């Protein structure tokens, strides 16, 4: 993909704000889970419906698999959150975030005829907030900014390269 980043201040500002807000959401979700000793994804996974529900249910069958899923989810959320807020490994964080949100979406797809025992806080038909957040991350993926720690490292790396030359 050819990259051109001629944004106005407003464009850059709101792209960074969007990234930071999504990062905040991820980070807090991760922190809440990791600090609650009783938290497990088991209930959520067992409530999965739709064409991939068999896969999500199967993740709860073995305690070891379930614990791995819990661990990856908790730390995934925290690290993605930090990455998005700080702009560190941004593209990787965005990609991982999209992957995680896609899994959430597919485990609880708001399709007609599917209902869940855990009620959602709004009314959704095919489109829900998870899908919107995922799409927002896709927007960030195709509109990268240079605000964040990545830029510092990039410049450092470039200047070191230049110095070496």
């Amino acid at each position: 993909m050819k990259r051109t980043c001629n944004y106005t201040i407003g464009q850059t500002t709101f792209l960074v704000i969007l990234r930071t807000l999504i990062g905040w959401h991820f980070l807090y979700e991760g922190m809440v889970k990791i600090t609650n000793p009783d938290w497990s994804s088991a209930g959520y996974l067992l409530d999965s419906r739709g064409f991939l529900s068999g896969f999500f249910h199967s993740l709860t069958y073995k305690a070891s698999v379930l614990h791995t899923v819990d661990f990856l989810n908790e730390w995934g959320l925290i690290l993605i959150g930090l990455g998005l807020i700080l702009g560190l490994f941004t593209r990787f964080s965005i990609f991982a975030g999209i992957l995680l949100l896609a899994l959430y979406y597919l485990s609880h797809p708001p399709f007609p005829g599917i209902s869940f025992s855990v009620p959602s806080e709004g009314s959704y038909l095919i489109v829900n907030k998870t899908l919107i957040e995922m799409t927002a991350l896709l927007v960030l993926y195709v509109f990268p900014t240079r605000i964040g720690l990545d830029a510092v490292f990039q410049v450092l790396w470039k200047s070191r390269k230049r110095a070496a030359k």
Partner: protein
Amino acid sequence: MEKKDKNMNSGEELKNETPREEKPTNPDKKVKRRDVLKGLATVPVLGIFAWGYYKKRHMDRVLKQMIRDELGMEYAPPVMSTAPSSGRQLRLGVIGYGHRGPQLMKAAGFVHPSWIDAARAAAEKNPMDKRYQEFMEQDDLNIVINGICDVFDIHAEEQMAAAANLKRQGSEGKPAYPVKRYRTYKELMAADDIDAVIIAAPDHWHAPMTIEAARNGKHVYCEKPMTWNLPETYVVRDEVKKSGIVFQLGHQGRQTESYIKAKEAIEKNLLGKVNLIEVTTNRNSPNGAWVYNIHPKASPKNIDWKQFIGQAPWHDFDLKRFFRWRCWWDYSTGLSGDLFTHEYDAMNQILGLGIPQYASGSGGIYYFKDGRTVPDVQQEVFEYPDRNLSLLYSATLASDKDRGKVIMGHDGWMEVGRTLNIYADRESDRYRELIKNGKIDPSLPIYSYSPGRKNPDAVTTATEKYFAGRGLLYTYREGKRVDTTHLHIKEWLEAIRKGTQPSCNINRGFEEAITNHMGVIALREGRRVEWDPDKEVIV
């Protein structure tokens, strides 16, 4: 504006612009500073997050601590012994292998080899099915079953095979030792190589068998209800006390963690003055209404019908009556004895209710018009004027609406089943200030106890779901799911070994039986009955 705009821009544009601003003497320095500023632009957000997170956590903790201080309740599960069985090996006899008998024997560690085969295959097919794993991990209670008794030959054969399956093997295994089948319970009770008996015969046999066991010095684990009629209740109590045997009544809810926490909450006076208790039964399946399968090979040739009838009024051979005896007053006490007694014992455990002063009841056969004589919809009300409270039992076998056990007090109410939730009452005096200043939200529980959340449960049938939801099928020890009946039998065996009293002993059993009979008499005679505690009679 244009200049500012450009400063905020990134990438190529920045490259284009920077040369204009650079001083030729120090080309890298300025770039670095600006890039560092851009790089760190969002770091303060993390600071705000940390501050917000700390504030929220702190507030939550303060609130929780405040509630904990106010309530004096710990969130940790009750400390229960999980020590394996020790001491001498006990030799058991088991009577009855119809519906409950196999469950009790499984809880004691003995199943028919075909059960192992089926459960193993089911676990391979569906990894959520943990019955096999849980059974294999269940504690060895250090017992043997030397004798069994069932009046139906096919059940007796199966019971013998289960009793001999000491090593928990499938059909590939061999019997561990010979198990004697006794034709009558009296012969079993007289056997020298039996120390204790589990009674899982129909309800009208509980008392005669317990009395016989006590007279023979055999310890007894008896299924609920303790007795089928009032007069035998006194004899059971007297004989058990006289003999000094260890008696445990089969209300396995005594082992349920949430009930134990509920008792703690009552002791800490979280609900204030308790004035109404509502306990319920809701089931909606033939199995839940005791319409059990009739064994296709059962006939007068392989059933000792006369022995089945026992003290019940004579009736000609009838397979329905044999397999679905709970549907007739002739052998059971209906909803009251079969299901209310569990609810009553839970409340007796949590609140120490004892015997009520008055009872009334009503009901009818409104759905299962299959020839049964016991109601399928039934209400019983018990009055405790000395405690200033009423106990209400409301039951139907033809609606699955989920209703919990609810204890209502002036300051709060609790719902107890597999989980425990306690709510403050909006009009409470005790919590008035806390509600007013927003520290307690009456729409949220002030205390919530939900064990085993990390372990998904698979419950297979509607009846199992009923028992599981009411905390009667399994509970948790150190976060691990355990069969409550297993723990209840284990407690009984430990009491025998140590010479102590188990939790549902003869005194609790007497209270259960009298309360049950008060409800049944009130219902059947259509009048309010009264308990005279001095004369110990129902008037």
